[in-house]
């Protein structure tokens, strides 16, 4: 049985932990609102861009000679995986979920005898991946010192991808990130960005639009596709940021609640042992008086 003093100390320490988790939850909630806002505001851009690309690809006259970014290199040998995680921990299963999805994918393609290359964005994912897949990591990117992720940062990642592609270092590029559905649900996702995956619609669904292209389709695609890569990366950044805060908020909410439960339990224990010692003292006094 721990002494009264020990119990008192433990209650105090749990209480101060609770204060920290509570504060973190509030901060996460405030940041979440902002992140969610910017994720929602960023959606039109990427959606519209996808639309334009969809329209363009339909009109490409000569699919054989279309830009490589669109149709790929025609091989399926080397996979480049961009694993996007947070730079901070204490956000529940956020980072582990992405890493788990990525690891499953790595296993699959390695079993298929394909080559794997990893670009780790964010330091937490790197920590989790480097133990098992350290040899495959070809680049590490972290924006730990930036306060806010803007399109510029996404562009940096986009440029890295494009450079590797132009050097023909990979055939397929897949982006791993958490899609923000709502505060408690975030879905880890693998999105293929090179070659562009086009949502297949039946012919009848698509309105036939006839566009005039100036200059021609190929040149527009050549201008647009690299931008699309950065846009997709940026979208992933935004979704990730919102997911991270949402995930942290739920995790910290749970932690606060658990700490509360623990304090209750400890307080009962404390009261019991205090009562026990009082009773013990009384018994001693009474039996002392009786013996007289």
């Amino acid at each position, binding site marked *: 049985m721990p002494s009264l003093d020990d119990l008192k100390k433990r209650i105090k320490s749990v209480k101060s932990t609770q204060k920290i988790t509570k504060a973190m939850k509030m901060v996460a909630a405030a940041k979440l609102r902002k992140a969610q806002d*910017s994720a929602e*505001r*960023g959606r*039109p*851009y*990427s959606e*519209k*861009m996808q*639309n*334009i690309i969809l*329209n*363009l690809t339909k009109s490409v006259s000569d699919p054989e000679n279309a830009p490589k970014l669109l149709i790929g290199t025609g091989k399926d040998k080397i996979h480049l995986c961009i694993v996007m995680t947070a730079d901070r921990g204490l956000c529940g299963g956020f980072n582990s979920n992405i890493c788990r999805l990525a690891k499953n994918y790595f296993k699959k393609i390695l079993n298929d005898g394909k080559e794997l290359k990893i670009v780790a964005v964010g330091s937490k994912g790197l920590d989790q991946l480097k133990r098992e897949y350290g040899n495959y990591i070809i680049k590490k990117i972290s924006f730990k010192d930036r306060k806010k992720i*803007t*399109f510029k940062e*996404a*562009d940096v990642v986009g440029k890295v991808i494009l450079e590797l592609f132009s050097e023909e270092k990979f055939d397929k590029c897949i982006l791993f990130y958490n899609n923000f559905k709502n505060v408690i649900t975030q879905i880890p996702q693998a999105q293929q960005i090179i070659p562009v995956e086009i949502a297949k619609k039946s012919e009848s669904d698509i309105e036939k*639009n*006839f*566009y*005039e*292209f*100036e*200059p021609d389709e190929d*040149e*527009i695609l050549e*201008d*647009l596709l690299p*931008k699309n890569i*950065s*846009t997709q990366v*940026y979208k992933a950044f935004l979704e990730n940021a919102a997911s991270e805060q949402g995930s942290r908020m739920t995790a910290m909410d749970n932690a606060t609640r658990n700490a509360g439960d623990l304090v209750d339990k400890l307080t009962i224990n404390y009261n019991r042992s205090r009562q026990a010692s009082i009773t013990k003292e009384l018994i001693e006094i009474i039996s002392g008086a009786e013996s007289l």
Partner: protein
Amino acid sequence: MSENFNLEIITPEKPIFKSETNQVTIPSFEGLMSILKDHISLVTFLRPGFIEAQSQKGDEKFFVEEGTVELNNNNLLILSSSVKNVKKMSKKEIDAMIQEAERAFNNKDIKDKEKYILSYKIDTLKEITV
């Protein structure tokens, strides 16, 4: 009959402009292009320049470095990561941008296409008076 059509300018961060206009001039990659109502459906991309939108409420002018334009059914959509409202640009900001562009321009390794874009960027920036 109204002569208006919709203009929407969207950056990756947020949509920044949405309004009815009756004429928009855009710096298309192959030259300036003015768009009126019932223009044919069009997809093109931009070089550095000004987007000028005219409407009853007054004119708006934006500086743009690059972008993609889609016009369909009287909806003009401009996607760009570098749109700035000219009114909101400061002298200091412009000077810094000119300096950076000139430095890049004087770099001998750049390709002709980049040079073409940069020269437009410098010229456009110099045109802005604050």
